[in-house]
């Protein structure tokens, strides 16, 4: 392991320590907000490893999250399966769903792929209403799903741990040869192919990792909320939140989506006491739009350039 990687690992460690100490100083209300930021970060990282890295833009991430959520919700609530079994089952089911995503990606890419994933999301939404509504709960969904732990502090630690471990592993992954090859796919898929790498295998790997992360996130999310309903998951607004977190933070960097998730969740909560109603979402959207249009590489690169300016100033 080279020096920079070690130094950066120190950064992760510091981040972990600070976040672990946080519950000592902040209120439980803030922890509740951060819990949502952690989930958003997991979803955004899952999106990032697929779309930010390989350039196959997914508009269907709620599809993957929904598969995980519904699988574990139905198994544990309807059939009494213990959650230590239903959650892995949900992750496995999501990876199967990820393969479904993968099939069109063999033949199409770019915008067309995005369209297809959007269609996937819409299909699952329709299915929850029509196919076996007695099992899925139809439009009302399922409420009263078992929670893993209760209370703000335990949930904070649980979600932070999940996000931290996933984040660290993904971050290490993208620094390996595989990770570099993945981002090369985005630049020029043909070139990667001619370099003798099997792009199909590489892509499949990225899809699987992304689906697994979405699966873990989705399953934990449902067991945190204690309920699931189709309108909450298969919504363009939900997709929107995930995309924005990844992009505002900085796509393709893994750290970016985490920053983006914290930033956006905080922004919304800051606005709540001032503008409790729809104005809040209006403003939030405008901020996201302006940040995105003027800095498509995200806050991550903004911070990087700020740092460069600072070090230039010093020397």
């Amino acid at each position, binding site marked *: 392991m080279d020096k920079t990687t070690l130094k950066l690992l120190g950064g992760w460690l510091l981040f972990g320590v600070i976040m672990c100490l946080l519950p000592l100083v902040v209120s439980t209300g803030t922890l509740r907000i951060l819990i949502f930021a952690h989930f958003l970060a997991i979803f955004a990282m899952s999106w990032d490893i697929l779309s930010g890295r390989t350039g196959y833009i997914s508009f269907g991430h709620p599809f993957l999250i929904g598969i995980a959520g519904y699988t574990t919700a139905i198994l544990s609530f309807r059939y009494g399966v213990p959650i230590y079994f239903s959650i892995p089952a949900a992750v496995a089911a999501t990876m199967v769903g990820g393969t479904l995503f993968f099939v069109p990606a063999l033949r199409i890419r770019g915008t067309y792929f995005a369209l297809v994933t959007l269609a996937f999301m819409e299909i699952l939404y329709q299915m929850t209403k029509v196919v076996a509504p007695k099992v899925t709960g139809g439009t009302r969904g399922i409420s009263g799903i078992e929670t893993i732990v209760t209370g703000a502090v335990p949930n904070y630690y649980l979600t932070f741990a999940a996000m931290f471990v996933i984040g660290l592993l993904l971050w290490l992954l993208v620094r390996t040869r595989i990770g570099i090859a993945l981002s090369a796919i985005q630049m020029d898929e043909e070139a990667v192919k001619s370099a003798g790498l099997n792009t199909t295998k590489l892509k499949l790997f990225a899809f699987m990792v992304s689906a697994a992360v979405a699966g873990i996130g989705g399953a934990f999310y449902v067991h945190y909320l204690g309920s699931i309903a189709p309108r909450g998951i298969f919504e363009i607004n939900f997709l929107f939140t995930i995309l924005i977190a990844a992009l505002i933070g900085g796509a393709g960097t893994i750290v970016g989506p985490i920053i983006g998730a914290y930033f956006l969740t905080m922004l919304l909560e800051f606005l709540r006491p001032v503008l409790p109603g*729809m104005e809040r979402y209006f403003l939030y959207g405008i901020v996201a739009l302006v940040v995105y249009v003027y800095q498509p590489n995200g806050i991550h690169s903004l911070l990087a350039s700020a740092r460069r300016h600072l070090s230039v100033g010093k020397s």
Partner: protein
Amino acid sequence: MAIQILIHGFLLSGLYALIAIGFTMIFSVGRVLNLAYGVYIMLGGYTYFMAAQEAGLPVFVSFILALLSGVAFGLLTYELLVRRLENNPVAVEISTLILAVVMQAAIILIFSPSPKSMWPVLRGVLRFEEVSVTANILLATGVSWVVLALLMLFVRRTHLGRAIRAVSMDRRGALISGIDPRNISRVTWGLSGALGAIAGVFFATITQLDPHMWVFPLITAVAVVIVGGIGSILGGLIAAHIIGFLETITTTLIAPELRGVVTMALIIVVLVVMPKGLFGKEEL
């Protein structure tokens, strides 16, 4: 029963073709998904509602106002977002999605989320034996055909239209031959806004006005594009008919609640069999 399916299928397909055409245009020329396309439909509907129903202006004037609102917003999308992000289609797609969500919030703030229903552009009911249809949807289909025909003529016969077609086929080549793709883009975005707004007036008078109404037409347009393939007006028209008839058959003969599922299943089948759509090609 067959007559009924034929009539309703034909009318619904016409409406869907009208909804999808503006979306397809941007896709062909700019190679981007305009996810704010549903907003033009919504704006067209709301403008028409304000003009015709609230202010009591004549139908024709209201229609023109709705059309202008679409043109204005189409140009605005281009100037404010698309032009800045021109080399990055993904950025365009994401930013237009953000724009759509922002506009949804704006509509809620201005008009409240309560749905409104609108008077038909043309009133009256026509009955053919057992089958009744509204004059309004008949007009929508008529307009749809006229618009599509005019568009075909425009693209094939006029100088500007040929330029648009040239850009959609080969951007760099067009640039070399002295066409300014920026101007072409402006025309396309304005035109797409207008088409969206026209579709919006009919879509809203047939269904209802509400701040979430942009999602369904967008999904429909996406379905048409996937089935028909990128960049073919005729392909889009045929795809709209496949979808429209499939829905009508499902609603009439099978089960109305499966309407959406069947359309989505069609999309999957097409994708597996012909990922580029039935008539996919790289020009308009």
